[in-house]
């Protein structure tokens, strides 16, 4: 029974995540293949779920008509000044706590300069020298349709608050670009991980877990197709035990499937280059519809961001304990509002309830489903734990027939 459930669940997953099923041979990590290994670090941009922008009172609803959610600050009109959104600071603190980071009671903002049409000021306000949080970690499971879950931990290097850019629509037929500034100035948290991942699958699974955590604590909407969560992957390949190789950056991966296939493609490409005696060029790469990475000539120019302290924003201060200063966010009061961590919840399902690890991961990966399962446990008519996966899947199919989901009462 358990096995049938499990197989069925895996199939469900496969549909859910639409992951490509690779053969065993293809999946084998590089180091087993040849004494080489891939080293991957991620930079994740998560849009903060707030009503107004990071530094202005314009709405963050950028589905509204073009260039209407734009204040004079967002279009960089001279004489305007940034005023920091309290909600964005609280969201960054919540994310830092959920990712086990060390929060810094004083952090500051910098200007990162570059010229691009959707960045009217010519610089982005970010936290380069003094980020709000550093040195955390997130536990996740690396698994796929044909690989059992393996528990992993990835160190988080830093979390910083920064502003988003506008959106450019490339009108190739007329050889022009169209710029909409509705997104310009929306609050982001950038999460930079250590380079401790080795496969595309690990990268995709980590990103998925991170998404769940951020959605769970209400920091980010997590809808990747809307660009609410964007992932850049730094990929390099080296011989095991040697110094890090030259890396490339694969930009704007906006689905878990693309993270897996594009990173895998990039590893294979670099491996082929290096094993034939070639060299990897340090560059930014995009990817096409099939997950192949392609050089982005656009950004090949030598970059020098000319970082400088943002002169219009004093240092951002947090307090460990309660705070009566409206300009100082209290870490302890944010901590009190956080729901139970997903990892703890999962451990509870596995250890206390006796749930199969796969089923536990599956349950936790959807907030509505998790609530449904919790309600089931509270109810005496709960099906036995052994057949939980079977019933969950049956119920999911039944719900889908009626175009409902687990959030329905």
């Amino acid at each position, binding site marked *: 029974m358990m096995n049938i459930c499990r197989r069925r669940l895996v199939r469900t997953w496969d549909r859910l995540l639409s992951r490509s099923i690779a053969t065993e041979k293809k999946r084998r990590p590089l180091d087993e293949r040849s004494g080489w290994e891939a080293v991957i670090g991620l930079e994740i941009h998560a849009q903060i779920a707030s009503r107004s922008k990071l530094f202005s009172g*314009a709405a963050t609803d950028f589905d509204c008509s*073009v260039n209407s959610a*734009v*204040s004079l600050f967002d279009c960089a009109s001279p004489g305007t000044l940034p005023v920091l959104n309290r909600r964005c600071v609280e969201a960054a603190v919540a994310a830092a706590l959920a990712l086990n980071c060390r929060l810094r009671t004083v952090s500051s903002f910098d200007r990162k300069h570059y010229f691009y049409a959707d960045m009217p000021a010519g610089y982005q306000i970010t936290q380069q020298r003094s980020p709000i949080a550093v040195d955390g970690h997130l536990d996740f499971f690396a698994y796929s349709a044909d690989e059992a879950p393996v528990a992993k931990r990835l160190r988080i290097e830093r979390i910083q608050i920064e502003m988003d850019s506008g959106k450019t629509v490339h009108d190739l037929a007329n*050889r022009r*670009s169209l710029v909409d*500034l509705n997104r310009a100035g929306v609050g982001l948290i950038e999460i930079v991980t250590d380079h401790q991942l080795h496969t595309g699958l690990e990268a995709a699974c980590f990103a998925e877990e991170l998404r769940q955590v951020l959605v769970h604590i209400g920091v980010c909407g997590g809808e990747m197709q809307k660009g609410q969560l964007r992932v850049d992957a730094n990929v390099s390949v080296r011989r095991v035990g040697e110094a890090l190789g030259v890396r490339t950056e694969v930009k704007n991966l906006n689905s878990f499937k693309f993270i897996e296939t594009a990173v895998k493609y990039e590893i294979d490409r670099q491996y082929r280059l290096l094993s034939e005696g070639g060299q990897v060029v340090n560059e930014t790469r995009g990817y096409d519809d099939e997950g192949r990475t392609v050089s982005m000539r656009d950004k090949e120019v030598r970059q020098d961001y000319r970082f400088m302290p943002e002169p219009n924003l004093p*240092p*951002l201060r947090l307090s460990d304990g309660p705070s009566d200063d409206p300009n100082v966010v209290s870490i302890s009061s944010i901590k009190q509002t956080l729901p139970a961590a997903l990892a703890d919840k999962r451990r509870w399902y596995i250890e206390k309830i006796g749930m199969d690890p796969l089923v536990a991961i599956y349950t936790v990966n959807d907030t509505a489903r998790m609530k449904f399962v919790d309600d089931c446990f509270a109810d005496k008519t709960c099906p036995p734990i052994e057949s939980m996966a079977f019933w969950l899947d049956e119920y999911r199919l039944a719900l889908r027939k009626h175009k409902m989901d687990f959030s329905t009462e």
Partner: protein
Amino acid sequence: MLLRHLVVGVKRPSGCLTKWYSSRVFVPIEPAISHIDETKVKPAPELNQELVDHLERLSLVRFSNEEAVHHLRKAIHFANRLKLVDTTNVKPMESVLEEMTCPLREDVVNDGNIREQVLCNATNRVEEYFVTPPGNIALEQAPSLDWTNIRDAPDKSTT
């Protein structure tokens, strides 16, 4: 950054110093002219076409002629004087606001919806979009300058 360094590092006439310490005023009340040993100032580096092209691209400022590049060298030389100030164990002051706390505002929508104002300076628009050339166009390379002319120009600034 400058003010604090002046207090800590630079030697000045003794009368001026006592005045500072008694009144705790950090900006000199009287002009305090520091004498700079020009022989110790690191000369500005040789500039070449490649570096000037790079600087132009970064700053979007065109060094249109030899005179402009000469002024740039003078500016670098002037800035190099600051390196004579001993800043050991002095934490750089990034801003006069650094003792303050960043003010926070509540998360309410009270701005935007001013599309006509936002677009009023656009020279080219389609529907409600700004229109720009496709892709990111790096600054085009300017014609090469007469480098012998710049190198022969006097190095010291006249203050």
